């Protein structure tokens, strides 16, 4: 199933979001989290999870009595897969400058991270213990 996982739809992304956020969850837990934002039928969520399991987006853990689901791929992996989406990329560029965050738009590089680490280490040494 490695390379053939299809891109998740918007609705599937929402369920994946819950699974990444909460870790492995029962259908009831996923339903509760989804309903907190927009009321949804329990059966809709169940059906959706079954479809996603079929696509290989989520895995079902059948060792438990109630069905427990877990995301098949990490968020990073999925994000990189979605970044190939042209539309996403087009939005990505100009959206980046319109949202505000604790980090700048551009990712830090290895060298920057090393430099940051050095600054922090230096500072810590100077701190009175």
């Amino acid at each position, binding site marked *: 199933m490695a390379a053939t996982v299809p891109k998740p739809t*918007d609705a599937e992304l929402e369920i994946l*979001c819950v699974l990444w956020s909460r870790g492995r969850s029962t259908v009831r837990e996923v339903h509760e989290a989804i309903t907190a934002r927009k009321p949804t039928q329990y059966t809709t969520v169940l059906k959706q999870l079954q479809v996603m399991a079929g696509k290989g987006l989520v895995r079902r853990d059948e060792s438990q009595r109630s069905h427990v689901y877990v995301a098949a791929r990490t968020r*990073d992996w999925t994000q990189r897969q979605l970044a190939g989406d042209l539309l996403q990329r087009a939005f990505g560029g100009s959206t980046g400058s319109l949202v505000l965050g604790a980090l700048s738009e551009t990712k830090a590089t290895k060298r920057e991270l090393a430099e940051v680490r050095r600054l922090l280490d230096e*500072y810590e040494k100077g701190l009175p213990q």
Partner: protein
Amino acid sequence: MMPLEGWVKTAVSEALGWALVHSLWQGAAAAALLRLLAAGRGARVRYWLACAALLAIVVSFGLTFWHALPPDGMRWARREIPAPIVLPDAAGGTARPAAFPASEVLGWLTPFWLVGAVLFQMRVVGGWVGTRRLRRVGVCEAPRPWKQTLAELAARMRVSRPVQLLESSLAAAPVVIGYLRPAILVPAGLLAGLPPDQVEAILLHELAHSRRHDYLINLLQAVVEALFFYHPAVWWISGFVRAEREHCCDDLAVAATGRGVYEYALALEALERNRCLGTISNENAAVVAATGGNLVKRIGRLLYPAARPAPAMGWVVAPVLVVVALACAGAFAGFSMNAAAAQSPAEADPYRKWVNEDVVYIIEAREREAFVRLKTDDERKRFIEQFWMRRATARAAAEKVREEHYRRIAYCNDLYRAPGKAGWRTDRGKIYIVHGPPDEIESYPSGKEGGPPFERWMYKELPGIGKKVIVEYVDAGRTGEYRQTMDPANKK
């Protein structure tokens, strides 16, 4: 005439051209001033100075445009009067070149600027649509305990609006979206993945953005960037604003955590490492140099505030100064051109007055060119004689045509004089001088049904234009100057 050319030759287009040219040095000056004033100040002061610099550029652009607009109308009318020309000295000395037609060149700037500005604005709109999508798609509510924590932190940060806390599948780093109903989006799993006190520090940073109305200001900033897309100084100042904005939020967040800068810096580092998971090996060396170490600067500033080094912007100053110098030179040249043009044509040179005023509406471009090239007054005198001869018809000798022409000018100066404008320069004057007296005039000096005063002229036939041509003039400003509302050439 092409519609584009028609637009380019309007006074509005020319005024925009002037505003664009002047914005070059205005922006450079604002950037230079900002750099001077902001050196060694705190983040808050630097931030507001930079915002003020951006605002000043926008305001001065608007003022320049307004100033360059002819105050007396004809804004959308095509400027048919060609730029005045300077004749060579009668003594036969080296001929000064005909004045550079600054106004025409400037008019051509505006279509390019418009296209660019529209494209860049579309990019802003696209980005805005993208943020809406980011907030809607692939998100879920954060677990309840975190929502409670956020409410407490918001109270500590004194954020008045309720802030939503969402986890997102698409966001790669925590962001704030929205002004009236702000939402903090964190990458799904981050809340559980980082130590709670680090998550709190990050949330405080995001709340600081919300408290400072940064989202709205940033949106306006993006619009300004798009308008001045051609201007390196504006982009530089805008980057300055962004950097200082983050510094301000860092300071607010550190103050609100109640722990030290070290813990806060650790949180930033952890967050960046979290984002770079997996992708970091893809970065190549060229990218390293280009990104400029934003995070390093921020953390360095937090940890060693006293050592605030002169920002490493020396490489910006040199180009800025060059731009200032070039633009000032350009502006000066522009002004001197204007000055040359503005020198009262009523002054000594009768030949200049002849070509620039007397026959300006009826002389053909070819004739004008030929006239400019003449060296001596004798040649000019002969040229003028021939000019009228060419206009002689079977019914009227050259002398008659000339007399009629000057009669029309005198008539217009008598009847159509407007405040600050000779009669021959007005719209009615121009039509009268070119086409002669109309066959019928309907005049409504006190308007009709409460409207402004207007006049309607009817020509039974205008050679080359058509039959039953109607020209309408309205005194919209009730100043005594009637302006043409439709071009007879468009009226069949």
